[in-house]
């Protein structure tokens, strides 16, 4: 993104070809790696919190290299909001599901007892669905909300309040998941 006022040495600021290209090459690998970590969150330490962070960071990397506005066009706001609400929904649904089976909120043993499958799968659902999606969404929304804050009149207050409420809602989400 070169804006009219960003002249240096009477020359237009243009994106560096080198940075653009290396980000282009790295991005698919980091995205794959982030998703890999999220999906294996239950059996490796660190797990989906980091996986979600890497997915978010991949988008940030593209945003830094290409400029915020093209990235914002590429990653629709609704997509990011959907990421977070989807994550929270999966999270709560898993919790309620275990309650429906007669356990406590997020008591995975209930799933294991009822269906005879490993304890692992409840954890998997939380890790993948809950934590990774929420963290990735939160990283992106926080970044885009902060970026939008530099020019206050670019976005309406309405979208800003959505950002803050969804990200504050997600802040408590991972905590619960990590305790188990």
């Amino acid at each position, binding site marked *: 993104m070169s804006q009219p006022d960003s002249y240096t040495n009477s020359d237009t*600021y243009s994106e560096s070809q080198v940075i653009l290209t290396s980000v282009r090459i790295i991005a698919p690998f980091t995205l794959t790696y982030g998703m890999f970590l999220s999906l294996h969150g239950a059996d490796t330490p*660190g797990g989906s919190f*980091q996986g979600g962070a890497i997915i978010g*960071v991949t988008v940030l*990397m593209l945003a*830094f290299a290409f400029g915020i506005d093209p990235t914002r066009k590429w990653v629709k706001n609704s997509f990011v909001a959907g990421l977070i609400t989807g994550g929270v929904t999966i999270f709560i649904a898993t919790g309620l599901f275990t309650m429906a089976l007669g356990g406590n909120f997020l008591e995975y043993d209930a799933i294991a007892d009822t269906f005879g499958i490993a304890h692992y799968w409840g954890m998997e659902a939380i890790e993948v669905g809950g934590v990774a999606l929420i963290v990735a969404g939160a990283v992106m929304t926080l970044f885009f909300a902060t970026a939008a804050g530099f020019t206050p009149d670019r976005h309406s207050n309405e979208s800003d309040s959505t950002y803050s409420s969804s990200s504050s809602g997600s802040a408590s989400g991972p905590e619960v998941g990590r305790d188990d």
Partner: protein
Amino acid sequence: MTADLLNDIFLVTAALFVVLAIMMFYRAVAGPTTQDRLLAVNVLGTNTVVILALLAAGLDEPWFLDIALIYALLNFLMAIAISKFTVERGGVL
């Protein structure tokens, strides 16, 4: 026998890398420009990645490599982000 010795060697090397990383603090504090500091922090970050990898080998905790990889990614992101942000105070972002 050699395995234990090798682990010790890795730990000693990691300690020496820590000393080299601490040397970077001089440049990070002294500056004089933002880019100098950024450079020092970037080198420090690379050293941290190496230290994590060496610890992974020395302590037999291979999952440290996971963290090293994430750290390397964040280090790269930081270098790009700040170096773009210093130009026109983010106007070109």
